[in-house]
Each structure stands twice: as structure tokens, then as C-alpha cells.
């Protein structure tokens, strides 16, 4: 039996044209992969396309069928359970990965043994860093290590079809020491599609998934750290670790610093360290006005945001928190969930 380094998990429900195009693209551009097609109660036309590919690809394809539509997440979990490869790619009929995509992904993962899941994101600019730690993955293109799946299982089926299922997966990964990352790739194209189902029902589903997430992991908190020369009495490396720990638990961090200190922090890699950490250096001139704008936007994001400032007299209409309390809060969450 041939051992494939990657299994592509493709849940399918109708859309025969897109399914055929996606399969054709995977067959030609991902020759190293086995395709696990999960027929999630499709009609005859789509069914026959899947049969056709399964027959033609022989060992390179595995067709799993469900008698009824069990939802996308359950279909993905079913696909995971059939996977034997060390890596799995979560894909949709709208995902296109051009030739050569796997090499960069494999090289990246080889250097990052801690990364359990890797979202492949579309590279927007040529200057953007190749990867960033991420808050959550994606249902369109995400690599999951089989070791991670063995440790935590698949997605939570109670959170079907929502971002909260992905966030929950990232939090559960962290409890086993696995990180979630995004890798920017020029090989990825995501075709446009409109989600089926009414907006009101979608909102209801998202709300219920959010409730489920909150119950398990607590709410998402926002911290605004206004960093001065004092650096909260700690060193840059410890500060970075504290911020990363907070961000990995799903909390948002907004870090501002005066121009001079910002340059130093940047050299320590504070910019682009995690999707949940927004590093916003203040300009040399009119820095207070810029800070006021940042505070305003932070409040708009979360009215209950905390302010941690190096200058105790600084007032901004946010709940104040000492850096020690901030560390204590982060440590408590870490103890609770890891």
C-alpha cells in the first residue's frame, strides 16, 4: 500500500461543477496527496462524479458516503477518522491550490514542530511576513497534523459551520501544546461563493456556537498596553511571552509604544507575532492624538477593554489594570485551560 504524506479531506454536498473542478485541480496540482471525498448526502449527479474519480484514482482516492447530510463539521470529522497520512488538508470545492504549494507548506512545518494546524492564507503583499501565529484555522484550506488529531480529536460538532468551532479547535490544540499558524501563499485561490441559508438562522447558529465556546473557554478580553520606556518593569522577551500567552488563549492585545521604544520592540519581533496582537507604534509627532484614536477604536471593539499603562496618571476612559494583575489574569487562564 502506498503511503501518502497528505490526505485531502473534501466534504461534498452537490455543486457538481465546482466539485469536478476542485477534484481535477487536486489531482493535477497535489500529486503527493490522497483525496478523501466525503459525500454528504449529495444528489445522483455529484455522486456519479465522485464515483468516477474514486474509480479512476484507485489508491489515491477514498470515497466515504453518508446516507443523510450530517453537516460540514461532522463530514470533516468523518474524513479525519479515515486519514492515515501524517498531514491532513481541510478543503472545500472552492479551494484551488496551484502546483508547488505543498513543498513550501512541508518545509515550513518541518521547521515548526509545535505547529499543529496551519491555515493557508492568500498572500496579499509581497512584503508581508510568510507566517504568523493565528487565532483560528479555516474550513477552506487548513493543514492539520495527524498527531494533533490523535491528541484532541476533530472539530466540535455542536459548533457546526462557524468560526467558533475553529477557535475552539485552536484552544484545544493549545492545551496539548500545539500552535495554530497562518502561512501566506501565492498558490492559493479561494473562489467566491455565497453561503446558503438565511442570515437570521445563521446568526442564531453563530450565537449558540459562541455561547458554547464561552462556556468552555470564557469570554474574549481586550487589553490595551501603552508601553513607555519603563517597559512595565520587565524585559522585552518576557513581555513578548506574556502577550503571546494572552493572544493564544483568544484574547486581543493592542500594544502601543512611543516611537523610540517601538523600534526596539519591533526588533524583538513584536510586529506580526500573533493575529490577536496588534502592534501600533505611535508617531513621533501628535502621538497623543494617535493614542486617543487607538483608544477610541479599542473601545469600539470592546467597551470593557482593560488599559495597562506604564504611566499611572494616564487616563483614557478604560478600566485600569496593573501589569502584575494582567500577568496574573493570563496565568490564571493558562492554569485553568492548559
Amino acid at each position, binding site marked *: 500500500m502506498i503511503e501518502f504524506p497528505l490526505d485531502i479531506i473534501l466534504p461534498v454536498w452537490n455543486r457538481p461543477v465546482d466539485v469536478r473542478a476542485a477534484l481535477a485541480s487536486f489531482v493535477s496540482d497535489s500529486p503527493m496527496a490522497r483525496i478523501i471525498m466525503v459525500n454528504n*448526502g449529495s444528489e445522483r449527479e455529484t455522486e456519479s462524479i465522485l464515483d468516477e474519480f474514486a474509480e479512476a484514482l484507485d489508491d489515491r482516492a477514498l470515497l466515504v458516503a453518508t446516507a443523510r*447530510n450530517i453537516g460540514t463539521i461532522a463530514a470533516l470529522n468523518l474524513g479525519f477518522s479515515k486519514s492515515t497520512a501524517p498531514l491532513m488538508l481541510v478543503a472545500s470545492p472552492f479551494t484551488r491550490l496551484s502546483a508547488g504549494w505543498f513543498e513550501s507548506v512541508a518545509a515550513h512545518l518541518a521547521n515548526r514542530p509545535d505547529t499543529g494546524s496551519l491555515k493557508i492564507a492568500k498572500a496579499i503583499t509581497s512584503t508581508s511576513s510568510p507566517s504568523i501565529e493565528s487565532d483560528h484555522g479555516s474550513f477552506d484550506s487548513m493543514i492539520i497534523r495527524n498527531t494533533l488529531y490523535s491528541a484532541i480529536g476533530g472539530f466540535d460538532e455542536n459548533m457546526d459551520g462557524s468560526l467558533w468551532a475553529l477557535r475552539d479547535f485552536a484552544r484545544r490544540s493549545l492545551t496539548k501544546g500545539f500552535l495554530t499558524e497562518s502561512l501566506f501563499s501565492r498558490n492559493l485561490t479561494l473562489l467566491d461563493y455565497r453561503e446558503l441559508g438565511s442570515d437570521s*438562522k445563521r446568526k442564531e447558529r453563530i450565537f449558540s456556537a459562541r455561547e458554547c465556546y464561552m462556556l468552555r473557554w470564557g469570554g474574549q478580553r481586550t487589553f490595551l498596553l501603552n508601553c513607555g520606556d519603563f517597559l512595565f518593569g520587565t524585559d522585552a522577551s518576557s513581555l513578548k511571552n506574556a502577550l503571546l500567552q494572552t493572544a493564544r488563549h483568544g484574547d486581543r492585545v493592542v500594544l502601543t509604544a512611543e516611537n523610540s521604544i517601538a523600534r526596539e520592540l519591533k526588533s524583538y519581533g513584536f510586529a506580526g507575532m500573533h493575529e490577536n496582537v496588534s502592534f501600533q507604534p505611535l508617531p513621533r509627532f501628535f502621538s497623543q492624538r494617535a493614542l486617543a484614536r487607538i483608544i477610541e477604536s479599542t473601545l469600539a471593539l470592546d467597551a470593557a477593554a482593560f488599559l495597562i499603562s506604564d504611566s499611572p496618571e494616564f487616563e483614557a476612559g478604560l478600566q485600569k489594570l496593573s501589569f502584575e494583575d494582567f500577568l496574573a489574569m493570563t496565568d490564571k487562564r493558562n492554569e485553568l485551560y492548559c
Partner: protein
Amino acid sequence: MLKIFDYLFGMFSTDLAIDLGTANTLVYHKGKGIVIREPSVVAVQKMNNGQQRVLAVGMEAKKMLGRTPGNITAIRPMKDGVIADFDITEEMLRYFIHKVHNRKTLVRPRIVICVPSGITQVEKRAVKESAESAGAREVYLIEEPMAAAIGAGLPITEASGNMIVDIGGGTTEVAVISLAGIVYTKSVRVGGDKMDEAIVQYIKRKYNLLIGDQKAETIKIELGEAYPGTAVRTMEVKGRDLVSGIPKTHEINSDEIREALSEPVNAIVDAVKICLERTPPELAADIVDKGIFLAGGGALLRNLDTLIREETGLPVFIAEDPLSCVVLGSGKSLDELDLLRSVAVSS
């Protein structure tokens, strides 16, 4: 050159929507509404040279069903929702088009024809060609459940899921519609005709009494029900005793007819259940709220909505005018050409 003539003649013709059903054909005239509602029956006389001559179409031909001499046959060109005899269908279409246009032979209307969702590309092509050779200038095909959904007033262009069950003479189409497209459909070759057949067989088996298809249809309309009602209705049925060969009368009741109809009715309920099971949760959630809409003549079967409600636990509604839903829907699409282009199927 021909295109110029087409354009000119098109200016003097009005657009039509045709519901080419197994049992009845309905024609919608843009601006006038439903102008023809006749049975899909054609009476044909076989000539000595082997050719066929159409004697009557529609109501007139239906009266001849089973009462024709040897050389005249009354044919139903549609069977199980699809065209069984293309030549006769073409004749029937030509007759209806000419009847609407007061027999002006030069007019070439734009026509929308409803087809069952399960038909093949070859069948679609054949329907289109039949209509074109019957005089249509431009032919659009719409799948019956889509037309029924438009006719029932469902918000088909929205992302929310809508479920429609169109119970016609030959087929029952169950479809889930979203974003002006059929996202899931199940077609079963069970409809009013199969119900009539089931009644004929039941009476034959139970009373050794042979009745005709038309009588069976009358019984279905008078006594037919899918779920027990408050009162038991009865009627006298005349037929030929299969043992003695003498005409005989028997009294039958609605309980018996419900039993007779259980097989075709269950097939319809099963199709609805399969469709619901295979619909993804994001669309099923909308159907739970909005319910299932019944259209087509079969929707008039007493308590069918109650049975489906009981079996699925979902709200079930009968469209306002179930018999005309399909043709009204296709007629509505004639008024909105953009909608027509987005819902028409390619052939």
C-alpha cells in the same frame, strides 16, 4: 434575414407559459392569465397509409378516451412527467399555441415550458425542439418545482431554504430552493395517475370489480384522503364484475380509499423525508421555520398536509391555487425576464 422576420412576427405575438403536465396542460397568456386548462390527451386516427391524423386535442379528446373505434386512439403523450410521444406532443403544443393566437399561423411567441427536474439533457432538448417546431420563437425551460415555488410566492432569490412539493399527475417533485437555484431535488414517478391506478387495483382486488381510470379519478376526488378525517364518506361505484362479467354496484368508503392510496402516498412522504435528511442543517433550519409548501393537483388530496406534518413534525402549507401554481410561476417569470434567465435551465 430570418431573424428579422422572427423579430417582426414576435412583435405581434404574446408570450406564453406552458405547464406540460401528465394529466393537464395549462397555458398562461402574458397579460391575460390562464387561458387554457385542458387534459393532455390527443385523439389520433390511423390512416390507411400508416400516417396519423390528429382528430381532437384536450377536453374533446379526453371524452374519447376508452370510447373510440379501432382506428382512432386517444393518446396521453406525457407519461410519468416526461414526453412519451414527441410527435403527438408537438401536435398538441401546436394546437394550444394556435388556439391562444386565434389560429394565426405566422405568429411566433416566446414560450416558457415547465419540465420535471429529473429529466435528462436529451429529453430537455426534445421538449425544446418540439416547441420550436410547433412555432415558438424562443423557448425557455423551467424546472417544475422552481415554477411552483415562484407561483406559490416563495422568496426563491433569497439565501434562505424553501421546500416545495409539487405533486403532479405523473411525478412528484420535492425540491429545496435557495438563491434562485434548486439546491436539492428528489423526483419520484408517483402522482395522481399512480393514485388512480392504486384505486383501480384495490377495487379489483377487494370486490372483483373493474372500473375505468376516469371513475378512479372521481373516487379519488370524492373520497380520497391521506390521513383519517373526522367523518367517513361513502359513495356507490359502478363497474363490471370480473367473475360474472355483469355490471355491478358497490358501496365504498373513504377508509378503504385511504388504504388503497397508502402506497403512493407513502412514496411521496418518503421522498419528502429523504429530501429533508439530505438537506444541510443551514437550509433545514429555514425549512423548520417556514415549513413545506405543497403544490400541484395532488396537494388537494384530503389531509395530505396533515400526514406530512405528522410524519415530519414541520409546518405544512398548501399553495393558494395548487393546480395552477406551476403555470402561474412560469407566467410570473415571463413578466420578469431577469428572473426567467436566472431560473431557466440550459438544454
